[in-house]
């Protein structure tokens, strides 16, 4: 479970990325985090990952206050969270298999476990035939799939996805979203996007952010820009 309690993030120049934002996300929930560019979607993801620290308020993940200065289990926290970054963050000198295997190796899974998990993830994202290929040989859609495979390979409890369709054509975007649909109910999935077509078609919970404030929390919502 993820709880944001009056979380604010203020940058040194005085502008707010988030301003007193509060919400709760249950285990295995599927939700969209929407809003225009600069609304604070990526800040929410970075705060959950403890890549950023809140200026005020508290963030609880599985009843642990990760915003506390005494919280030191950053590595353990991040091992619970699979992330699909907006810029993919794929390692260019490693092939597809190695990029995905990293997530399993970090958690000290055995060689055979790693191999099985990677094969399963590759099959889910439809990239089984490209495990030996290097990132420079892949299209943007395929890179996105590799990033998704890495985020889901070792069965992490949470999946954070930052703008999964931002760089993709409509057809590929829908294919990518189908992958997340398959994972529904198996883990907590938070997708940050400003693609209203996708959000509206899924009819899931939507948190709408605007200028750092939570302006709407709709259980089965849609979204209009």
């Amino acid at each position, binding site marked *: 479970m993820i709880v944001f309690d009056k979380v604010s993030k203020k940058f040194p120049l005085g502008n707010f990325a988030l301003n007193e934002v509060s919400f709760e996300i249950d285990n295995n929930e599927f939700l969209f985090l929407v809003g225009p560019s600069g609304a604070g979607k990526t800040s929410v993801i970075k705060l959950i990952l403890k890549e950023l620290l809140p200026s005020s308020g508290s963030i609880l993940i599985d009843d642990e206050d990760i915003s506390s200065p005494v919280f030191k289990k950053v590595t353990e926290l*991040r*091992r*619970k969270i699979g992330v699909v970054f907006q810029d993919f*963050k794929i390692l260019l000198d490693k092939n597809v298999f190695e990029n995905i295997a990293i*997530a399993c190796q*970090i958690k000290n899974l055995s060689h055979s476990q790693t191999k099985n998990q990677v094969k399963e993830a590759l099959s889910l994202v439809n990239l089984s035939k490209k495990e030996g290929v290097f990132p420079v040989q892949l299209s943007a859609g395929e890179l996105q799939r590799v990033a998704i495979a890495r985020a889901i390979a070792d069965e992490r409890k949470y999946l954070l996805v930052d703008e999964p369709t931002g760089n993709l054509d409509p057809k590929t975007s829908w294919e990518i979203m189908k992958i997340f649909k398959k994972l529904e109910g198996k883990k907590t999935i938070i997708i940050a996007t400003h693609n209203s077509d996708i959000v509206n078609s899924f009819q899931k919970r939507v948190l709408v952010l605007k200028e750092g404030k939570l302006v709407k929390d709709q259980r089965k919502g849609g979204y209009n820009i």
Partner: protein
Amino acid sequence: MKEIFTSLRRTPYQSLAGFLVLFFTLFLSLVLLISLSFVNGFLSYIETRPQVTVYFQPKTPENNIFKVRDELSASGKTLSIKYINQNQAFEIYKNLNKDNPLLLEMVSADILPPSLEIYAKKPIYLPEIAEYLKKQGDVDEVQYQKDIVDKLLNLTNVLRRSSLIFFIYLIFMSIIVLTTSTLFKIALKSKEIEILRLLGASNNYIRKPYLIEGLFFGCAASLISFVIVIGTFFYFNPFLKSYLAGVHSLTLDLYVTKLTVWPMNTVFFAVMFSLSLIFGCIIAVVSSFLATQKYLKV
């Protein structure tokens, strides 16, 4: 192992640069270490050469001379003491003057003094021994070349200190150069380290490949440098043999044991290889550790 070779294949020039730095450092260290062992062995050998010779009055009873000899032996400061009685002194005199019958006629064993030739364990004991001998009643003369011993002591001290300073400098320089070259390599991978951190990798996980690669380079560089140094050593062996012809053996005093440096032996080479291997691994691991430390702050 597979990961190391994959890394070597994918970044051949960076790996080669790192390896060459380590190789030259270890090669120089090994040459220096072997040279220092030889120099130290040779210095220890030279230091035992000076002696104190004490001449007793011709009529001194042997028991008195033996008493002095035994007291010196019991002090623990002497390496060996040789007693030369009047007859032996006369034999020596005859050998030295065998071409001069006139001199031989003039001298008999009775007028030659009995003597003790004393070799000290360390040259710093020589003045003390000489002073002790001068205080003995039957002593006629104590011969001890103070100036030569003092100069020799100064020289060996300067050599030992300068070699130690050079060795410390070499270690310091190696770590700086290797840390810098590893830092360059890691700087190129800072993006990768950032991604690994976000995926939940621990510091040890991130550091491990660099440490293992450093360890591999350390072992390979020390092995190759050892083979080259040993090859060179064998090539110059005939020259060394003729140069050190009069020297029975050179040993290095390691406090707990003595290591024979010359003649060539497998124990000495095994010790040199082990030291080179340990030194290579330590500097490779320390420099990798220092270099990764910079990028591992949360």
